[in-house]
């Protein structure tokens, strides 16, 4: 479990997350099928792709929660999976992953304590950020879906990790608060935090520094939104994605083969 520092990797400063040829299969399903990526420190990456394209599985591989069938992942120079590296990673799962009978403050306090942060100040700071300061004592069962997403994000941020993996963080969050989330992500990135945000919708893509399009377990395109549009000659990112996936504007296969969609997530 001990992470071995990779000297070659350490030498290339500025790269926070690196994956080389990672693969993960579930029986016959190639959930992640040979992904190479490099995430630079202090940038926000959008991981975009339809349901079942392998975003969640890729994030779980990057956090070390899943063992790759092939390939390697390094986070901040440590080979994953590694327990020490975990305190430097913030992972927001796609599922709710909260204790429904515990209050907002208790949920947050529990995970903060596991991370060695039990100070009230740290908790108040993130609660303020997600605007749940007035719901500290409410049990999670009494919160709306959007509030639960906000609490989940607060838990992810409480130990101020330099690397964030956020799996569909803004689902169910109202537009005003979404704007606030993004400005906070931007502030964190400016402070050197590396952020990977998975989403199956394109509407937040423009807020990212760089995009990774995923389909069928593979990264089919990477670059800024502008680059991806220019490269495919598309008006918008949806079209760019479809072109890269080899589909026409109606989502039908253009040429060789159609992509199979996985389970809805």
């Amino acid at each position, binding site marked *: 479990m001990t992470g071995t520092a990779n000297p070659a990797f350490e030498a290339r400063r500025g790269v926070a997350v690196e994956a080389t040829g990672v693969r993960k299969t579930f029986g016959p399903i190639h959930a992640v099928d040979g992904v190479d990526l490099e995430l630079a420190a202090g940038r926000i990456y959008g991981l975009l792709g339809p349901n079942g394209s392998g975003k969640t599985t890729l994030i779980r591989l990057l956090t070390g929660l899943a063992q790759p069938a092939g390939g390697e992942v390094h986070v901040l120079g440590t080979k994953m999976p590694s327990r020490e590296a975990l305190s430097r990673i913030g992972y927001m799962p796609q599922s709710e992953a909260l*204790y429904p009978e515990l209050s907002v403050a208790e949920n947050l306090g529990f995970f903060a*304590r596991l991370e060695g942060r039990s100070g009230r100040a740290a908790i108040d700071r993130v609660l303020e950020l997600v605007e749940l300061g007035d719901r500290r004592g409410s049990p999670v069962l009494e919160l709306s879906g959007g509030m639960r997403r906000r609490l989940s994000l607060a838990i992810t941020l409480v130990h101020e990790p330099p690397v964030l993996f956020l799996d569909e963080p803004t689902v169910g969050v109202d537009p005003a608060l979404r704007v606030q989330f993004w400005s906070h992500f931007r502030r964190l990135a400016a402070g050197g935090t590396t952020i990977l945000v998975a989403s199956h919708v394109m509407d937040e893509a423009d807020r990212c520094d760089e995009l990774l399009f995923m389909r069928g377990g593979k990264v089919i395109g990477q670059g800024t939104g502008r680059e991806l549009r220019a490269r495919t000659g598309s008006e918008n990112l949806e079209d760019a994605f479809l072109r890269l996936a080899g589909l026409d504007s109606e989502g039908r296969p253009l040429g060789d083969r159609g992509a199979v969609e996985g389970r809805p997530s």
Partner: protein
Amino acid sequence: MSARRILAVARRIAQGFRRDERTLGLVFVVPIVIMALLGWVLNEQKDGAVRVSIVNQAGLIGDRIVDALQTAAAEADEPMTIDTLADVDAAREAIRAGDTDLAIVIPDSLLDDLTSGTRPTLTVISEGTDPAAEAGRFQRLQALMADLAGQLAVPGAPAPIVPRIEVKTVYLSPDATTVDVLAPVFLGYFGYFFVFLLTGISFLRERIGGTLERLLATPVTRGEIVLGYTLGFGIFATLQVIILTLFVLSAVEVPAIGPIPAFTIGMGVESAGSPVLTFAIALILSLGAVSLGIFLSTFARTELQVIQFIPIVIIPQGVLGGIFWPIDQLPDVLAAIARFLPMTYAVDGLREVMLKGADLGSSAVQVDLVVLTGIALFFVVLAAGTIKREVA
């Protein structure tokens, strides 16, 4: 290992309980209600009058027996009624109809037998559907007959001397009831059962709710999670066992208030040995149930499936653990299985301490404690092994 993280996990479990009144009720109130009910049923079982019908085929001498029986029955501590019926068929009919419990047939050969020195035979007819109840009735009838034997001598001959039997016991008092013997054991059994059920379900929720995955994305280790659980549920098991121990051992008389009749809180079972040792045995047993619950939750996908483990895990321990039938009397195969069950050692330990007054110096108690601790540790390791980083 970080004590801070273990404490954090334990604390989270306690916080979860605090808002869950139903579960708290299940843990603290239900076992007491069940114990109280059990004590009530076993203690206050009505010994209804035994109804005996006599079919006298022996004429005058038979009448003398009937008279003597009736006199003895009237004087007996335990109620018994005696009447006569015309013949065996009538007696069978009466038993079938539920009008009488036992029929005694006094044969017409009685006088001949007595004069010729042959032992006479009395036939007793019973229903034959409820062995336990009938055994009790026979016992009372026999006690009566023993008193009577003196009067059945041949006229003129000296009355035979029938010794009275007085019962003395090594451990419990002779009039110890089933409750005294079963209470110590149920003490351990309930703790085990509830702790197993609660941990199994809690941990299953942790797995399917995604919180286990979130946990594993923090620096907490698998061992810390299992120990945190053991500590968290251990606190509840401790409280539960303390309450149950107090309930079993004490008896507080509550006087009648207005329309409410006087009643007793607690079962007032006497423990020969240390209540602390009793508590320790029950607690170690319960702690083993925590990791067993975590381990088995791996094999369940829904809460219902955790409940389905009850007949597999809990019931066999109840049957084979020596609660009702001693291990030595089990068929070889089952006895061998019983030796692997923690309940076996807990039952033995609890009985040694509560009934026989054994202390830590007793080798039987030492073996029980060591084996129970060993089983608990074994499951801690096994449970930690089932918590994979990869939870899918």
